[in-house]
């Protein structure tokens, strides 16, 4: 049996999903962390699976991830719905419940965060509420793992008995009531033919949900009759159709809650959040605080935790390399194999591996921003500024996630409700320097500007942001004309991030990185080693300048001559960077035939400080990696647009690097 887990954003769906299935999906404290549906098997009921759907406020989709949820419920026809609601905010949450009930799918209501309600002096009469709504109601606390088994039992029971939700008149006698009943009567046959619930179809007709209207296949005459009933209702009720329908639903909810709910006092969590907000969203301090926070994140990542750990790891890798080198030499292994292992794999993968701590630490901070609830505030605070470049505050989240990795950033853009804002945000995320580029900056900064390494790092990030802003301004006035959508977002209470959730996320990212290091980057280094060790007749070359790779590199080198670097090894490194950005460094490691520690000095033979800067600017901006391009293609639903992103990035990168090279050339 299949159960759908549906509920408002940020009401604990993913936490419940993890409890039900024993899986470890990342739970954020930001509306819309789940942008994709996830399936898992129930721990206690092996023949049942649960689908975690993106959070929605209503069945009339407003953003793309809401469409995912609506379409799943409509098309997949799950055996049951587990509707999870935040009991501390019950009225708003029940708004979705009423709409779900109209679909007439067996359903249970899970009252989450009941512990918080009780601790603050509130109660909910579960039996009475169950009676009023006609569905089982189970109080739970997903975070504390309370009531989960009862919930599963109840869900399985209603699904087995195929106990569809009752049709309840949410409306009292009045214009809305009359309208709903007359429309229901008119469309009954059509709804049955389309396999839809009559009541659900009726609501969607009133809300003018074109997809459902199409499914009903009403004749022109019938449509006019329906429209006539609705217009009559609008006139009688004195408000438009949407307001009337919403008003009816909330009236019903209020009457149910009046009988069953003793509201809790303002919870401690809420009071605390208001206090924190008075500082973090302060009229004048909000933006300086945000800049300070971001500065701290990068400072701690690059200068304090990450850097120290990375240095230690790099020493360790060098020691292991030396040890293996000695062992292989003592064993007297074939020199070609020796070269493959030491100059290929160890030089390549090793040079990238040492950056693992920096990247994990960066993800740690980004997840803290999200899990505490600060990310939603950032969106609010930055809204005004982002509007100046044609985006809205909601775009800040994908952009910030982009500092970690472009792939989840592009996916996070689904929370944007306007297609224009979404496309523009996707096109801009690659300008936010992703964490895979950190190894490149770090190696070059240490090699050419050891005293100013931190400055170079910050400079790279700022350059990316500034060029992103320029591109946004151009987009806003050319391809993406129009206004960003007005900003509306629920602000979750601040929460202390759970250690488990943060550690799991870090482990996930570390695993991702290691996987990349030992698959794509490993493969890339082996191929590069091969291409630079053999000539076109597959003879081992003594000087890599005679190799196949050199021949390819020479072809491309003239393209980069104006940027100040025309050695054949550089274009090849940039090409491998297309598979994964870390590969730029691993390739240079292989091509220079040096260990991680010696790579820096060796680079002096390829670059001057000025051309090093130009190279860094180029790598900052040029085409995102394959995985990111694939994500862009998926989200923009167009291979051509994805190709456009690649070309755009490369052109911008070339121009920016050329400009920087010329400009710096004037001073040096």
């Amino acid at each position, binding site marked *: 049996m299949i159960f759908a887990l549906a509920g408002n954003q940020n009401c604990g769906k993913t936490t419940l999903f993890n409890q039900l299935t024993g899986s470890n999906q990342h739970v954020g404290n930001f509306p819309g962390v789940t942008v994709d549906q996830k399936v898992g098997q129930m721990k206690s009921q092996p023949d049942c699976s649960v689908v975690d759907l993106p959070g929605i406020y209503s069945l*009339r989709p*407003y953003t793309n991830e809401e469409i995912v949820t609506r379409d799943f419920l409509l098309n997949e026809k799950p055996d049951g719905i587990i509707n999870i609601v935040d009991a501390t905010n019950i009225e708003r949450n029940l708004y*979705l419940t009423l709409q779900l009930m109209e679909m007439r799918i067996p359903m249970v209501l899970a009252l989450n965060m009941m512990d918080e309600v009780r601790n603050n002096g509130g109660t909910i009469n579960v039996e009475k509420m169950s009676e009023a709504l006609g569905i089982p109601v189970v109080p739970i606390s997903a975070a504390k793992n309370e009531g989960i088994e009862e919930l599963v039992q109840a869900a399985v029971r209603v699904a087995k008995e195929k106990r569809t939700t009752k049709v309840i008149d949410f409306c009292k006698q009045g214009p809305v009531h009359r309208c709903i009943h007359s429309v229901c009567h008119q469309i009954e046959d059509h709804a049955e033919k389309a396999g839809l619930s009559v009541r659900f179809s009726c609501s969607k007709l009133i809300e*003018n949900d074109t997809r459902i209207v199409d499914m009903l296949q009403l004749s022109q005459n019938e449509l006019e009759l329906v429209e006539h009933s609705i217009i009559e209702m609008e006139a009688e009720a004195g408000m438009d159709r949407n307001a009337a329908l*919403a008003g009816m639903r909330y009236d019903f909810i209020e009457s149910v809650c009046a009988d069953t709910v003793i509201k809790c006092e303002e919870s401690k969590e809420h009071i605390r*959040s208001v206090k924190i907000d008075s500082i973090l969203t302060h009229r004048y301090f909000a933006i300086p605080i945000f800049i300070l926070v971001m500065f701290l994140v990068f400072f701690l990542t690059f200068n304090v935790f990450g850097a120290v750990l990375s240095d230690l790891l790099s020493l360790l890798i060098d020691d292991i390399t030396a040890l293996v080198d000695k062992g292989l030499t003592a064993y007297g292994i074939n020199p070609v194999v020796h070269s493959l292992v030491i100059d290929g794999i160890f030089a390549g993968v090793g040079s990238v591996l040492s950056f693992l701590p920096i990247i994990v630490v960066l993800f740690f901070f980004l997840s803290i921003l999200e899990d505490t609830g600060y990310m939603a505030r950032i*969106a609010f605070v930055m809204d*005004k500024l982002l509007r100046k470049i044609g985006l809205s505050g909601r775009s800040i989240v994908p952009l910030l996630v982009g500092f970690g990795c472009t792939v989840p950033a592009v996916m996070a853009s689904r929370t944007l409700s306007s297609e224009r804002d979404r496309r523009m945000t996707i096109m801009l995320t690659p300008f936010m320097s992703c964490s895979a580029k950190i190894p490149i900056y770090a190696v070059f900064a240490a090699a050419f500007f050891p005293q100013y390494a931190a400055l170079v790092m910050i400079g790279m990030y700022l350059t990316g942001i500034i060029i992103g802003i320029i591109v946004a301004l151009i987009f806003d006035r050319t391809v993406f004309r129009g206004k960003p959508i*007005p900003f509306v977002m*629920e602000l979750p209470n601040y929460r202390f991030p759970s250690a488990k959730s943060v550690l799991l996320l870090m482990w996930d990212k570390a695993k991702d990185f290691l996987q990349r290091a030992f698959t794509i980057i490993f493969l890339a280094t082996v191929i590069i080693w091969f291409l630079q060790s053999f000539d076109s007749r597959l003879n081992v070359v003594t000087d890599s300048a005679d190799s196949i790779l050199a021949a390819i590199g020479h072809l491309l080198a003239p393209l980069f001559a104006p940027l100040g670097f025309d050695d054949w090894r550089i274009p090849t490194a940039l090409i491998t960077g297309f598979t994964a950005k870390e590969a730029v460094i691993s390739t240079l490691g292989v091509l220079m035939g040096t260990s991680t520690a010696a790579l820096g000095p060796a680079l002096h033979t390829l670059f001057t400080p000025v051309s090093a800067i130009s190279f860094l600017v180029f790598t900052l901006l040029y085409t995102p990696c394959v995985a990111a391009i694939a994500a862009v293609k998926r989200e923009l639903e167009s291979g051509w647009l994805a190709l456009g992103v690649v070309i755009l990035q490369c052109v911008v990168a070339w121009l920016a690097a050329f400009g920087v090279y010329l400009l710096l050339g004037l001073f040096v």
Partner: protein
Amino acid sequence: MPLALAKTGEMQTIRKISGRDDTKRFLESLGFVIGGQVTVVSEINGNMIVNVKESRVAISKSMAARIMV
């Protein structure tokens, strides 16, 4: 008057919501309904944080201008 002009801390009753249908519906699903209550918690440059039902919602100036109280 539009919510954008409401004073911080005063509870207001929503009289009308104007604007595009989809944004209006979205506001309704968040708890902004005619006859419902809303309180401005804070305001930065016209953008506002308001209490509606039991949740806190951040809305931009242009959105706040569409909600009449």
